[in-house]
């Protein structure tokens, strides 16, 4: 069972949230090849380890936010805002 700290509501049970998948995916602009568009829509790192992902407090305030979470231990490492830069976590895809 995960305890997730919503930036607005504080610690809440995982059942109150929905996961929206990988975050920080940039939508391609302008004319895009089929390859680039398919990659954007479907292809993911799917890391075994730290994953930067978006969550929504669906059964609470309804707000979206970002998490750095370990997909093996389910430990929630960092909670940060939708428009914030990703945290520095060595080895995490998408991290700086």
């Amino acid at each position, binding site marked *: *069972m995960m305890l997730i700290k919503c930036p607005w509501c504080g610690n809440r049970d*995982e*059942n109150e949230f*929905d*996961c929206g*998948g990988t975050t920080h995916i940039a939508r391609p602009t302008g004319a895009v090849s*089929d*390859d680039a*568009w*398919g*990659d954007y*829509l*479907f*292809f*993911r*790192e*799917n*890391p*075994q380890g730290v*994953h930067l*992902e978006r969550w929504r407090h669906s059964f609470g305030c309804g707000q979206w936010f970002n998490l750095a*979470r370990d*997909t*093996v*231990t*389910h430990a929630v490492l960092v909670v940060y805002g939708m428009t914030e830069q990703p945290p520095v976590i060595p080895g995490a895809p998408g991290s700086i």
Partner: protein
Amino acid sequence: MKYSAWSLIRGGLAGHQNWSAAWREATPKPSYDVVIVGGGGHGLATAYYLAKNHKITNVAVIERGWIGGGNTGRNTTVVRSNYLYPESARLYDFSLKLYEGLSKALNFNIMLSQRGLILLAHSRHDLDSQARWANAMRMNGIAAELITRNEIAALAPALDLSPDARLPILGGFIQRRAGSARHDAVAWGYARAASGLGVDIIQNCEVHGFLKDGKAVTGVETSQGTIRAGRVGIAAAGHSSVIAKLAGFKLPVTSYALQAMVSEPIKPLLDTLVLSPGTGAYLSQSDKGEIVIGAGLDLFPSYAQRGSFAGTQAILAATLALFPSFSRLQLLRQWAGIVDVVHDSSPIIGATPVPGLYINCGWGTGGFKAIPVGGWTMAHLLATGKNHELAEPFQLERFNTGRLIDEAAASGIAH
């Protein structure tokens, strides 16, 4: 040694002391024609069909843990072919047909029991969508029957069929050829038959990287040393992305935990498989008497082989709404497997962007039923370098061309 009634009697008279090992423990040779990464059902079946259908026996299956210890040993053992689109119907029905002859082909009893799978309709909308589903199957030449509430009552009287049930049962449909098979026996049967034809099965051998000549893969770096290979096949289910990363490409896969559980054994009560798509619950009774309960996905990426408590609670609530008499049963075990879910809930059996490297993945929540066809088509690909015709629509490139085969509705588990 060939298993038979005679060998069983002889074994019994000798006090079961003289049985030989079912397959050879192998240590890696420096090189093979084909190396298969992943010793689950799909990997072992691939090795067997490479040897049997294509006479390629210089093959190794390398497995990080023990064979059949991943999703092959973690599923709810359902085999069925009730899919919607012609491409999938062909694929899964070919698999079911191979299952029907598998005990004989492998000389290993996989305990296939074609006891029928009932899908329950709890609303008018369920009735409509299941009529469409059954009709789609019949259009594809696969027998399916719409059945009434009374027929369901005769097949599974333990269901709560009262009109004021929490989940009223209005009707449903049945695929009578669907059933269950012993999942360990499928892994062991393929391993024994493949080993008998000369395949090396190497356990406790983890892949750490790939040998490359330019762009092409020429072998694998493992915890038991370097192994060169003419071609390499990946059959790693929920860990496909991890292996793909070692080779330098991405997959359209997300890994999720899918959980299941069994109760204590009880006397025979349920001799069909029951699936309630509305609640995501699917149940059967094992030959040992345990009630086997399959649950839904935890809808966040996970490589932890355990399901969330919320998932357990939801599926047990649905189970008790369907079968109130199960309320005093105790659970013996609960576990999860990591499944490789793709956007259209259809598999990928084909070449990767890396020359010499091929992959069989994306079965998501339904890999067990597909073990024979996954192995058959992957063996064809590794032997000839060309796609098997059944696998032709299931290529990685479909995610770029847009020609998806969306079987989410037939997967039985909400994605």
